[in-house]
């Protein structure tokens, strides 16, 4: 019984760790897409910030400097996306793909030139990474029944970005649904002409939304290389950006359902790590590849309408043209 409890705790613990970049990236996508700009470039922005953060952290030795540079890189890429899609009214999906491909090539190219380690950054340690935090009383309460392990194992002992991600959900929800800025973001995503008529610049609002996207994506990418991992490796995002996008669609562009979608994906991922090679009674050993594909299968099934139709923001994907 105690073993089973601990087992579940460990899986949930892993779920939180895997979910963190998904949650941050999905919230990032939420700001962009709510403002009417499709963001398929979450993957590239995360990868870019992961590289920038690791490169900076390995040079300066400071995780905070790394995070700052990682966020700056993601904002820069986000502005590039805005320049193409908002200013020049380019195709948003193509722009996102272009960013993904550029970063997939650029990060290892620069990594090879700067660090001479086959496209990776040097392994990070000490202050160059965000260490796990032990929350107050975690040690003291560890022996308490049920609540003790729950607090000390599950809640405590993560690095700071995990807590940032947890805080980001209510903050993002508050910004989007309780502030004037959020109202305007949603308005330009639904009916940009109405916003324009009210004398508010559609372009300015969309750019601001993309800055928020950049910040959140930057934190998500930095998490991968300087908090969860210890250095940049090529393709280290491994589809997380796309998965975050799927979670966003599946969460119907709303913060809390999106959070649960991310947790679900992260849970299947945590579970698959445990299930690999395990002999399940009555089924036998499930092929690793099948378990690894679970989040993707789940996404397709869910998108196929088992959760009801997801209705995107009305003006999504359409460049805004002022009427003459």
């Amino acid at each position: 019984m105690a073993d089973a409890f601990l087992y579940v705790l460990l899986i949930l613990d892993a779920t939180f760790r895997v979910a963190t970049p998904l949650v941050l990236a999905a919230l990032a996508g939420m700001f962009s897409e709510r403002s009417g700009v499709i963001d398929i470039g979450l993957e590239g922005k995360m990868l870019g910030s992961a590289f920038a953060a690791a490169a900076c952290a390995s040079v300066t030795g400071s995780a905070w400097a790394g995070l700052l540079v990682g966020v700056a890189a993601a904002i820069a890429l986000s502005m590039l996306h805005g320049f193409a899609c908002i200013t020049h009214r380019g195709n948003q999906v193509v722009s996102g793909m272009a960013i993904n491909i550029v970063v997939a090539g650029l990060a290892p190219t620069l990594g090879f030139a700067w660090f001479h380690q086959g496209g990776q950054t040097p392994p990070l340690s000490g202050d160059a990474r965000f260490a796990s935090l032990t929350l107050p009383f975690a040690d003291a309460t560890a022996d308490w029944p049920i609540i003790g392990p729950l607090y000390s194992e599950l809640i405590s002992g993560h690095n700071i970005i995990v807590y940032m991600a947890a805080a980001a959900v209510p903050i993002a929800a508050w910004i989007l649904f309780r502030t004037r800025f959020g109202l305007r973001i949603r308005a330009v995503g639904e009916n940009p002409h109405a916003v324009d008529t009210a004398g508010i610049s559609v372009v300015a609002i969309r750019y601001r939304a993309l800055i928020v996207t950049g910040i959140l994506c930057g934190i998500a990418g930095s998490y991968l290389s300087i908090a969860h991992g210890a250095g940049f490796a090529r393709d280290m995002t491994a589809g997380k950006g796309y998965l975050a996008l799927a979670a966003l669609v599946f969460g119907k562009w709303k913060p809390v359902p999106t959070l649960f979608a991310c947790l679900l994906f992260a849970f299947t991922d945590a579970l698959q790590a445990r299930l690999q090679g395990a002999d399940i009674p009555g089924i036998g050993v499930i092929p690793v590849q099948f378990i690894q594909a679970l989040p993707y299968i789940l996404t397709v099934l869910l998108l196929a309408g088992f959760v009801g139709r997801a209705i995107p923001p009305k003006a999504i994907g359409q460049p805004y043209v002022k009427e003459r």
Partner: protein
Amino acid sequence: MSVVGSAPQNVPRFVTLGLIPLANLAAAFIISGLVVVIVGDDPLQALEVMLYGAFGSAESWGFTLYYATNFVFTGLAVAIAFHCGLFNIGGEGQAMLGGLGVGLVCLGFDDWPFVVVFPLAIVACALFGAAWAFVPGYLQAKRGSHVVITTIMFNFLASALMTYLLVEVLIAPGQQSPESREFAPGAWLPYMHDMLRAIGISMPETPLNLAFVVALAASVFVYYFVWRTRWGYEIRTVGQNETAAVYAGISPSKNIILAMAISGALAGFVGLNEIMGVQHRLILDFSGGYGFVGIAVALMGRNHPVGIALSALLFGALYQGGTELAFEMDKITREMVVVIQGFVILFAGALEHMFRPQLESLFTRRSNAAAPAGE
């Protein structure tokens, strides 16, 4: 999501079709040159190495055209989906499945005569690729699941499926790496140098093979299908205005599914070139990003087979030249090709309107100097 821009009538065609893409391309190369400078090499020397590597000899032409063959297939695949207003980002997965179809035919029938195996392989790769695109197409048409996201998911699923099959099922006995056994030579697509030798022309050995001819045939097919048949007309109508299509009695969902299936079939032909033409065995990751780059090929080629053939040649040259680049210059790695591709997609695709106003006004003013046109 229409990508077809409407140019004013009085802009000369060579500006829209030639000058603007060239300006975008130049911008992409200048930015890539900056990356070469950052990395610490000479961009002009890099350009020279690339150009020579892609076009400098008969051998490099063979390699360039071999890569271009794949880009023709994926470019056409993306284009036909574009004409229906759809984004097929799943070329990668469809190519893998196409290769699987070809591989299964070759593994099963490679003791049969080539004249039987070849048509079978063509049908198999088209069917497998089409099937992999059919599901996202169906889900888009009937359930409204966004095709961009489902095709991305299907790329991951294809990759997992291929890994499973090659690691667990199709792997050659007594072997470590996940590859099938080699096909009997009877099931190999003839190489171009062998075919040319038969008619007395000598050419160095390159991977260029019969699939190149299939690519040309596919281009003609797509042109004929999209612009000269009723199906193509219906697909284009749905792509331009779904409401109008419904009023005209054209079913959007039927055409969405049809366009996706044909798109997948075309992407599947990458498997023909790679598996039956060059590798002669089923391997992993032979799709090498061709599916994604197909988006750029289609965009630069303005979704027309002639344009696609030209831009496929460009990307083929980029691949081949980039390989030479990684060989010749010590500070540049294979990833530099990916960087250049990305910038070409960015400038030719997403930023295609950046230079348009300036270039167009330059030429409209000149040709209409007598009659100043009002906005």
